[in-house]
C-alpha cells in the first residue's frame, strides 16, 4: 500500500532511460536530417540577410523617407508621420540605428510569414469544426509553453542563428492572426452570406468577395497583435543569435548597464508604437465604409 503514502512515480532509472532514449533519438534525427532541413531554409535565410543588409546599408535618410512614405500612405495623418520621423531620428541619434534596422527587418519578415501561414490556417479552421478542434489546443500550447522550451529542439536541429530565432518568433507570434481570422470569418453576418449564396456565388467568390473582406477588421486586429508579440520576442530570440536591439539589452542585463538597457528598450517601444499606430490607422481607414455618416 505504498502508493497511499508516496506518489506512485516512475523509478529514477526508468525516467533516466526514457529521457536518454528520447534525447538520443532526437539527436540522431537531427544528425541525419539537420542538414537537409537547414538547406530547406536557406532561401529564407538568404532573403532575411538580404533584407537586413538593405535596411542597414542604405543611407539612413533614404530609409527614414521610405518609412515616412509608407506611414503617410497608410494613415494619412501629418501628426503621425512627423512623430514617426522624429522618433526614428532620435533612435539613430543615440547610436542604435543598425540594431533597430536589424530588428525592423526580422519583425517585418516574421509578420509577413505569419500572415502568409496564419490566414490560410484561420480560413481552414473557420470552414471545418474538426480543424478548429485540432488547431485550437495547439495554439494554446504555442502561447503558453515558455519560449525557452521550444527553443531547445529548434537549436538542437538548426544550431544558433537567424533561422531558429525566426522560427521561435513565429511560433510565439502567429496564434493571434490564426485565431482572429477564424473568429472574423465565423462572425460574418449570416444574412449577408445567405444573400451571396442566393445569388449563386462560387465558393471562391464567397470567400474572397464576402467572407474575407467582412472579416478584415478582425484579421487586422490579429495582425496587429502578431506584430506586437513578435516585438516582445526580440530579446529572447537574441539569446540564440538573432541580431538587433535584443543583443544590447541582453548585454545590459548580464553587465548591469542600466542606461544602455533603457535606451535599447526604448527603441523597441518606439518600433512597437510605430507598427501599432500605422497598422491601426490603416485598418481604420480601409474600413471606414463600414460605419455610417463618414
Amino acid at each position: 500500500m505504498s502508493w497511499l503514502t508516496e506518489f506512485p512515480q516512475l523509478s529514477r532509472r526508468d525516467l533516466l532511460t526514457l529521457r536518454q532514449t528520447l534525447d538520443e533519438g532526437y539527436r540522431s534525427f537531427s544528425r541525419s536530417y539537420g542538414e537537409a532541413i537547414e538547406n530547406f531554409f536557406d532561401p529564407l535565410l538568404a532573403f532575411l540577410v538580404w533584407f537586413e543588409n538593405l535596411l542597414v546599408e542604405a543611407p539612413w535618410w533614404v530609409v527614414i523617407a521610405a518609412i515616412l512614405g509608407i506611414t503617410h500612405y497608410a494613415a494619412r495623418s501629418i501628426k503621425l508621420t512627423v512623430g514617426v520621423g522624429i522618433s526614428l531620428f532620435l533612435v539613430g541619434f543615440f547610436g542604435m540605428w543598425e540594431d533597430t534596422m536589424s530588428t525592423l527587418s526580422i519583425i517585418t519578415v516574421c509578420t509577413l510569414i505569419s500572415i502568409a501561414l496564419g490566414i490560410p490556417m484561420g480560413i481552414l479552421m473557420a470552414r471545418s469544426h474538426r480543424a478548429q478542434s485540432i488547431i485550437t489546443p495547439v495554439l494554446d500550447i504555442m502561447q503558453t509553453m515558455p519560449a525557452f522550451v521550444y527553443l531547445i529542439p529548434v537549436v538542437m536541429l538548426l544550431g544558433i542563428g537567424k533561422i531558429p530565432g525566426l522560427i521561435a518568433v513565429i511560433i510565439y507570434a502567429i496564434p493571434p492572426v490564426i485565431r482572429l481570422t477564424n473568429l472574423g470569418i465565423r462572425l460574418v453576418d449570416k444574412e449577408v452570406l445567405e444573400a451571396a449564396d442566393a445569388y449563386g456565388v462560387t465558393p471562391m467568390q464567397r470567400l474572397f468577395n464576402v467572407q474575407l473582406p467582412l472579416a478584415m477588421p478582425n484579421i487586422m486586429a490579429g495582425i496587429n497583435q502578431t506584430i506586437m508579440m513578435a516585438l516582445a520576442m526580440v530579446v529572447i530570440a537574441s539569446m540564440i543569435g538573432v541580431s538587433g536591439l535584443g543583443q544590447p539589452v541582453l548585454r545590459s542585463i548580464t553587465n548591469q548597464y542600466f542606461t544602455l538597457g533603457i535606451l535599447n528598450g526604448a527603441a523597441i517601444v518606439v518600433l512597437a508604437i510605430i507598427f501599432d499606430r500605422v497598422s491601426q490607422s490603416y485598418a481604420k481607414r480601409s474600413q471606414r465604409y463600414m460605419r455610417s455618416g463618414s
Partner: protein
Amino acid sequence: MTSPLIRIEGLYQLFGKNPQTHMHLVKAGKTKDEILAETGHTLGLKDINLEIQQGEIFVIMGLSGSGKSTLIRHFNRLIDPTEGRVIVEDEDIMELDAKSLRNFRQKKMSMVFQRFGLLPHYTVQENVAFGLRAQGVGKEEREKKAKQWLEDVGLAGYENQYPAQLSGGQQQRVGLARALCTDAEILLMDEAFSALDPLIRSEMQDQLMALQDRLHKTIVFITHDLDEALRIGDRIAILRDGELVQVGQPADILLHPADDYVEKFVRDVNRARALTVETVMKPPTHRIDAKTINDALAHMRSAKSGYAFYVNDEGYQGFVSEENLAKVAKEKGKEPLCEDYYEDSFVISPETPLEEVIPQTLDHDHPLPVVNEAGELTGELSRDDLVQVLTHTPTSDAAGNDDASEDEGTAKGTSKEPPAA
C-alpha cells in the same frame, strides 16, 4: 389553368441531428412541442403542398416562428428539406448538382432580405450588380444595368455611396434593385419591408406594386402583417407551427377564416379598407329588363321589393321605384321605361374599397347597384350586408360546427395573440 410555375409537394423539415430517424413521429401526427420534448428536434415544416402561378404575388404569413423563413429558403434551396419536392418549371431543384444549382440561383430566382443583406464593403452600384458579377457578366454591362435599376427604384445619384450611408428604406431599395437586376423571373421576399417604419413601408409597397404592373414577376412575399398581405397579395397562405392552415384570396381569408388562428389574425384588420365592393356584394336580384312601365310594376309587385335596377341590352340604365312608377302608370303604363322615370341613385364600382362607399350605402334605404367598367350590372350592395361585414367578427368555419364553443375555449387558451395591426 396553366401549369403552376412553382410546385411544392409534401415538404417536411425537421431540424436536428438525426431528422430521418424521427420522421415517423412527424408522420404519426405528433405536434411540434411533443416532438421537441421527445427527441430534441424542431419541426420546421410539415407536409406543405403549394402551387404558385406565373405572375402572381403569393403571400405567406404567420406568427413569428411559424416557419415562414424556413419555407421560403426551400424555394432556392438555401435549406435542404428533410423530405419533399420543390419543382420550378417542371424541374425538381432537389436533383440539381452544385453547379446547376448555382446557375439556377443566378438566373431563375432572386431574393430580398429582411435586414437587407447588402455587402457593406461594396458601393450601392456594386451591390446592385452583385448578381450579375456572380454570373460573370462584364464590368461595363453590369454597371450600366445596375445604374438603370437604381434609377428605377428612385436612387439615381447614390451609385457611389456605401450602404451604411443610406437610410433603411434606401438600403432596401438597393436590395430590391439587386434582385431585379438579374432579370430573374421569381422574386423571393422574406419580410422585405418589416424592418421599415410604416410610412416608408407603404411607400415601398406602392413601389413594388408599380414595378409589378410593369414587370409581371412571380413574387413570393413573406410578412407577418396581414394589412400588408391583403394590400399586395393575389393569394395568401397562412402558416401555423409549420403547417399550412389556409390558402386563398384575400377576401376569402377575411370572410371565411379556416380556423381560430386565422380568425385572430383577421380580427383586427380594417375590413372597410381591405375589402372591395365586389367581395361583399350580392347578386343583383332586383334587376329587371321590362319593356314597359306596367311590366316593371308587375315585376316589382311580385318581388315585393318596391324598387328595381333597370337593365337593357346596353347594360345598366337606372334605378326605379314602385311608388313613383305607380303614379304615372295610369296614363303612360304602356310606354317604355326611359330616363324620365329614373331616380337619383349612386352607382358604385366593384373595385372600390368599402371604406369609400360607406356613406352612400348607409344613406340609402335600398341597395346600391354595382356597375363595372363595361356598364354591366354585376351586383348590389345593401346597407345590411355592409353593416354585417363591417361589424360582425367573421365566424370561422370551424366555429360554425356544433362543438364550436368547446373548440374555441381550448384554442384560445393555447394560441398566441395575433400581432397588432
